[in-house]
């Protein structure tokens, strides 16, 4: 998932909330075909969806829904992070990485009966590429801009040239997408849920749909809120979206090309409060939920619930904004901070079991992770020495944390904040606490208003650039770090089509970053998801991209 320079509230929510789901095509079917599937499966999500058309969205909850209804060209393997075919059975890329040829699956139909073919795929890409007006606001096309830059006709000078060149249907089932320049964001970018393929009929119906209103006060077209217009190819069709109950009902698509869904009906119900979600599961009101608090895992397991844990695919960090706060521009101060924080205690007492202290800015499951990075052990004495050397015994720092939120990489932000604050004060630093609600928090931290702040990232796809590039590809207000060489190296690495060279470059980058120490990586931890005892849960995805059609009811 990507950052962008200008953020709007909705997108803000998304950029860190991002939990993107892929509907994978290859669910292993072990279930009994005669099993009763009629009872609705209710899943407790953390928030309501924003739009029925995922293109307009950038938040994990919308993608959780859209992955069940729409499919993308490429997807991640069920329960893993490797890229596999989605609507495209397989694909190849040109040597320079600019021409991508997708061989589409045969016999796939949309929910409205249209056939899925190369022209349908290209019609989607062409629509996105040619959007105009308010659609070009990053509020309404966040992921397109993140992956493909601009549009055919950029209306805002600030938008970069589009990286998308063309999509051609060379035959019935072959789409060729040409991009202007290779980047390691491909092929991962083709798997993003925002690029779910919709039927030609849908595209025709929504061709004239307009977004009205002003920047910050947009009204989305009716088709994004009223079921009936949009049709995808996924295992579920849209039943109804009850906005006042924050509940969307999905029905099984019987003509699905792959294994049919194990539930006739899938209901995604928004329960913002994590305690309420747990209680709803315990009471039987829902049959599964995401963002399980670490403390709830064991009691739930003891009570007979299934609480599978996802593989680690995230990182939590403490950022040092070195431009806003000149004191943090001093490497000795940053090192002192790194030595002052007892990260092991955070991992042991607050994060879910299986978490680890992070040594660098992405988890060790990603290629590019280096064993040779500089490490900073918990050593308050060393921290005090460093502060004394830097002549900063009376250092005062403002420290921001988000309220009323939990993230997969950051349960209980306030507790983590409290622990770090106590550690910092222990070495003689005065901390000024500041707290903001999540959306505002993202805005403030991204514009560099906070000297110290907590944030993290869950990967969208399997490439180190998805982590490192997000933060350290250009000088930005979030970090205030200005290391042109590092940025250049980052661009080179990302643009190198040779995988092995790229990975070596990433290792070097990780070592370089931990020397510069723009922030302190705290932990990588495995988030859990909970299911009722009588459910065969879907495979859990490290990318938090579960495909619910894999789930089913257990037999009695």
């Amino acid at each position, binding site marked *: 998932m990507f950052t962008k320079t200008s953020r709007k509230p909705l997108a803000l929510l998304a950029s860190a909330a991002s939990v993107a789901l892929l509907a994978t095509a290859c669910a292993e079917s072990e279930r009994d075909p005669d099993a009763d599937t009629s009872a609705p499966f209710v899943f407790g999500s953390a928030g309501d969806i924003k739009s029925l058309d995922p293109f307009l969205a950038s938040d994990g909850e919308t993608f959780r829904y859209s992955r069940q209804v729409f499919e993308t060209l490429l997807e991640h393997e069920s329960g893993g992070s490797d890229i596999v075919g989605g609507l495209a059975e397989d694909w190849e890329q040109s040597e320079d990485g600019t021409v991508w040829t997708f061989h589409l699956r045969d016999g796939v139909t949309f929910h409205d009966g249209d056939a899925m073919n190369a022209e349908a795929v290209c019609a989607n890409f062409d629509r996105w590429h040619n959007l105009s007006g308010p659609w070009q606001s990053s509020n309404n096309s966040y992921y397109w801009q993140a992956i493909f830059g601009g549009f055919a006709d950029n209306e805002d000078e600030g938008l970069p040239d589009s990286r998308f060149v063309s999509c051609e249907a060379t035959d019935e089932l072959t789409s060729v997408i040409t991009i202007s320049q290779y980047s390691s964001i491909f092929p991962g970018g083709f798997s993003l849920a925002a690029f779910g393929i919709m039927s030609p009929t849908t595209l025709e119906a929504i061709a004239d749909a307009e977004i009205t209103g002003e920047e910050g006060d947009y009204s989305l077209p009716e088709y994004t809120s009223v079921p009936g217009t949009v049709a995808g190819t996924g295992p579920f069709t849209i039943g*109804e979206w009850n906005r006042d109950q924050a509940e969307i009902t999905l029905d099984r698509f019987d003509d699905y090309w792959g294994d049919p869904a194990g539930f006739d009906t899938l209901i995604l119900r928004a329960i*913002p409060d994590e305690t309420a979600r747990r209680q709803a599961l315990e*009471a039987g*009101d829902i049959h599964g939920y995401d963002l399980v608090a670490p403390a709830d895992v064991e009691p739930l397991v003891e009570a007979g619930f299934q609480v599978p844990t996802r593989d680690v695919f995230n990182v939590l960090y403490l950022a040092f904004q070195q431009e806003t706060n000149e004191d943090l521009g001093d490497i000795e101060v940053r090192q002192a901070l790194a030595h002052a924080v007892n990260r092991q205690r955070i991992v042991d007492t607050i994060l879910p079991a299986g978490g680890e202290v992070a040594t660098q800015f992405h988890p060790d499951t990603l290629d590019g992770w280096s064993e040779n990075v500089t490490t900073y052990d918990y050593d308050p004495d060393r921290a005090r020495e460093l502060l004394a050397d830097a002549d900063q015994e009376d250092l005062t720092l403002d420290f921001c944390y988000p309220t*009323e939120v939990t993230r997969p990489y950051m349960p209980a932000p306030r507790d983590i904040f409290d622990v770090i604050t106590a550690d910092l004060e222990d070495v003689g630093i005065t901390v000024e606490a500041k707290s903001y609600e999540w959306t*505002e928090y993202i*805005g403030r931290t991204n514009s560099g208003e906070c000297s110290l702040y907590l944030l993290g990232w869950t990967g969208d796809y399997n490439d180190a650039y998805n982590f490192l590039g997000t933060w350290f590809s250009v000088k930005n207000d979030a970090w205030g770090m200005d290391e042109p060489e590092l940025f250049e190296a980052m661009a080179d690495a990302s643009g190198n089509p040779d995988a092995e060279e790229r990975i070596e470059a990433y290792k070097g980058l990780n070592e370089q970053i931990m020397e510069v120490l723009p922030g302190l990586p705290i932990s990588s931890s495995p988030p859990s998801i909970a299911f009722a005892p009588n459910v065969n849960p879907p495979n859990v995805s490290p990318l938090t991209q579960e495909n619910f059609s894999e789930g089913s009811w257990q037999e009695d």
Partner: protein
Amino acid sequence: MLRFLVRRTLQLIPTLGGLSILLFIWLQRLPGGPEYALLPDDATAEQRAQLRRSLGLDEPLTVQYLAFLRNILQGDLGTSIQTGRPVVEEFFTRFPATFELAITAMLMAIAVGIPLGYLAARRRGGVLDFAAVGGSLLGICTPVFFLAFILKVIFAERLGLFPSAFRLSPGLNRTDLSGFVVLDGLRTGELDVVWDALMHLALPGLALASIPLAVIVRMTRASVLEVLEEDYVRTADAKGLHRRTVRGRHVLRNAMLPVVTAIGLLTGSLFAGAVLTESVFAFPGVGSFVYGATQTRDYPVLTGFILLIATMYVFINLLVDISYSLLDPRVRAQ
């Protein structure tokens, strides 16, 4: 009576008008002005300027206020930052849930509070009186959200007697009806839906009812005690009327006058209390929506909610006055 109604309705205008001015000033005074509420922090100066123009913020204040007022009167309260939908629409879809909850809570409070207060007064100084007064003081002193949590942990989580969240069990939702699920269920004859809805209403209703219940018990008790001392009650006794008649016609009817006022005012505050209760029980009403709005500083929603509550307060006051005049001929005569 008609003239009374017209006059009272006309009296609402200055109060609501003044309130709209206060609200307008409030919006002006928000950190960074109203455009802050609508734009992110890192919006460009140009974006801000454009928004100011489009909102008419470079117009004189009076013109702005009139525009603000016109929008309100046209039912346009702006767009929610959380959901991107018009605030009015958001309230409209969620209102039935909160309304059912508030009515449930008020009915519970009245059904228990008035008899309890009455009995406490009759048995003044007795065990029941002590329990009623002590209990209501305790109720007033317990933070509502804590009570809600306790109820939830005990009755939903530990004992499993009631559902812990939502308005209905999954699968019972109907979007095609009015949204008043209890009424809808009764109308369509789906008694299972009605029962399910009532079970979901029980705990949040009880939590929400705690304050009004406490107030009603105390008001009723005090009022009955006062009326019991009244000469006309002695007169009624001196006439040898049955106790039933004395209590019903002479004691309760008079004692209810101040209680009716209190019930009116409490009903208004119930909708505000719903903010705390609904969020605990994930009850999908206006309250939990506004709770979200306080978390996200969703100013259009907050503004709209304040207007909604104030308008309701004013109209409830009107209703109280009307019912008062029906109950008390002395007021009617004035």
